């Protein structure tokens, strides 16, 4: 008996030690001289000497140097981004809304997205007035324009990894290239939290943090509410008849889960793992087998184009008529702004919550009901 008591006591001490250690680790994860990040995992920002900030994104390190200051010599491997940033070239369309949210859209002069592909009115207005110009696709930018405009920074999405020569060429011209990886964030709020990075880059941290806090507050009780168990599919039909769905670990299914619903596919259904993000094309029969009984269907109009009615959708996929969501009239279509309006992640979750609770209007900011 005594032996048992002693063993139990030892186990308790060990467990207490472990948990204390765990707390200590989590506390040191965000040192005092670092930017406090609640959701984002793909970047860190550390405040170093001379008022500079060391930003780490994956393997890349960047030293953001304030105007009139010099970069500390200890970080020679970091790419120097000298403030004030002017004439920025942004080839990551999802970053534009974050830059706008941070109040620095006027510092962007060039983009790789055409006017007609923008759904952000502020960007369209800037292009209308000539403040932002299109200088070619991310894979074939107009290098002469970059030099002529005296570009201070090129922001690229991870698509640049497929065209490494473009990055090399821009760097060879003396322009720092920042590859933003917000698309790698699993947490939708993590994507939104990248606004803090743009706050640092453009020297408007306060506005960026304020907007982030406002948006996250919007979620209020949604995140803590009990799940209502409604299931949903998020998909589109491609031109060769395949069904393109989000991988279960992607941020869109995560938004559904945060909004109180359940994504219809699991990793085992699709043969994916926790690290698999973005989309995958599955066979129509797999989709039918899993999604016919989903409570809600959300059609992704980003690539395939928007649809006006369920019957229009059924022309592409006649079996939809058998789906529970179609019978109940719970079929929604995304607006074009869903993927560009990065600061709207919290609003999107709120809209999804309304859909799952049956309180949604037929026309919302990011989604509308198909008749």
């Amino acid at each position, binding site marked *: 008996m005594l032996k048992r008591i002693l063993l139990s006591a030892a186990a308790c001490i060990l467990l207490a030690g472990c948990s204390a250690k765990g707390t200590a680790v989590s506390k040191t994860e965000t040192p005092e001289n670092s930017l406090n990040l609640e959701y984002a995992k793909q970047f860190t920002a550390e405040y170093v000497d001379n008022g500079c900030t060391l930003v780490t994104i994956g393997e890349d390190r960047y030293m953001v140097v304030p105007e009139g200051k010099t970069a500390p010599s200890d970080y020679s491997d970091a790419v120097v981004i000298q403030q004030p940033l002017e004439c920025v070239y942004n080839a990551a369309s999802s970053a534009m809304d974050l830059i706008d949210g941070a109040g620095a859209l006027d510092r962007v002069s060039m983009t790789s997205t*055409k006017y*007609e*592909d923008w759904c952000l009115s502020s960007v369209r207005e800037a292009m209308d007035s000539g403040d932002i110009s299109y200088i070619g696709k991310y894979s074939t930018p107009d290098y002469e324009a970059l030099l002529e405009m005296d570009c201070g920074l090129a922001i690229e999405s991870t698509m640049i990894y497929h065209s490494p020569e473009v990055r090399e060429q821009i760097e060879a011209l003396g322009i720092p290239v920042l590859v933003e990886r917000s698309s790698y964030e699993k947490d939708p709020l993590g994507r939104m939290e990248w606004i803090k990075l743009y706050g640092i880059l453009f020297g408007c941290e306060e506005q960026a943090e304020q907007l982030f806090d406002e948006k996250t507050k919007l979620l209020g009780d949604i995140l803590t509410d009990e799940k209502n168990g409604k299931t949903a599919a998020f998909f589109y*039909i*491609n*031109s*060769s*008849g*395949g069904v393109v769905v989000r991988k279960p670990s992607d941020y869109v299914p995560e938004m559904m889960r945060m909004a109180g619903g359940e994504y219809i596919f699991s990793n085992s*259904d*699709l*043969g994916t793992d926790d690290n698999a993000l973005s989309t*995958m*094309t*599955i*066979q*129509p*029969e*797999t989709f*039918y*087998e899993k999604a*016919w009984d989903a409570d809600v269907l959300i059609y992704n109009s*980003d*690539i*395939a*184009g928007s649809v006006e009615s369920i019957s229009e959708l059924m*022309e*592409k*996929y*006649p*079996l939809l008529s*058998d789906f529970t969501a179609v019978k109940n009239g719970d079929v929604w279509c995304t607006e074009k702004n869903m993927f560009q309006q990065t600061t709207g992640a919290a609003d999107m979750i709120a809209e999804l919550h309304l859909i799952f609770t049956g309180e949604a209007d037929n026309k919302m900011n990011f989604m509308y009901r198909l008749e």
Partner: protein
Amino acid sequence: MKTQRVRLIAGYIVLLLLLVILAAVNICAGSADISVSRLRSALAEPESDKVAYNIITQLRLPRTAAAAILGGALAVSGFLLQNFFANPIAGPYILGISSGAKLTVALLMVLSLSQGFAVSSLGMIGAAFVGAMMSMGIVLMISGRVKRMSVLIVCGVMIGYICSSVTELVVNFSDDSNIVNLHNWSMGSFSGIVKGEALTAAAVVFPACIAAFLLSKPMNAYQLGESYAVNSGVRIKAFRALLILLSSILSACVTAFAGPVSFVGVAVPHITKSVFGTAKPVRILPACFLGGAVFCLLCDLITRTLFAPTELSISTVTAVFGAPVVVYMLLHRERGRANV
């Protein structure tokens, strides 16, 4: 003669058996987990398992039918072209005819997506037919001037390149979403073919194949030389025009419904001729159709099941099996020339 007949009968029996077996496997196998017993009970009582019933009748059945019909169409199209050019390597893909069809379908797709209107199956066939005929016209013009087969093949490949570059030009000025759609389509797939489309394909392919079969006799005479055909009473100009028209309709139909599918038109007629030991159209043309159907059913089965629930493009698989046949044919011809 007797051996030839036995070979012919045996060949047809094997092809028919393979067609039935592969069609059955295509209907039974897929990414959705439907066992044979579940399949049987779903077919017997649709209301008891509506999911399985719908998957089988509305997805797998039309797709299997389309793979068989369009595969057969491609093989017959290739056979007609090979007869026309007296060239075993001639085929809709190699001669750039599929690329022409691809170009016009791409133009139509980009236009319809940007203008927000939907294109019907017949509209797609029409566009593909126009493109196929344009490429075919150029190939015909070249074939009248060159005698060497290799030059003709190179010209066909060049036409393919030109069509591809014009398609790229269109892509250059298209929205990203159009590019993604076009890219998906240009990889070729039998996925998403519904009952109505399979029936439309059948309504185009079967009459065209029957018409081609009715041309067997003049085709046979044509195989023995143009002057022999003229002396046999074949109206050469009309015959040639008909042959080209039928071949273009068949390949255009395939491109419209499944996108560009490579190598079936070249590989299948060659394999069929080798197996049957004859090139007589009256004997070989139905076998080509069956061979094409069997080949595409097998390839489609692989595309659907190898990495389920994702799917490979059909051309990825047909090229793996078809391209070695083309290489073999080229080597075989070279060896034949060296022996002469």
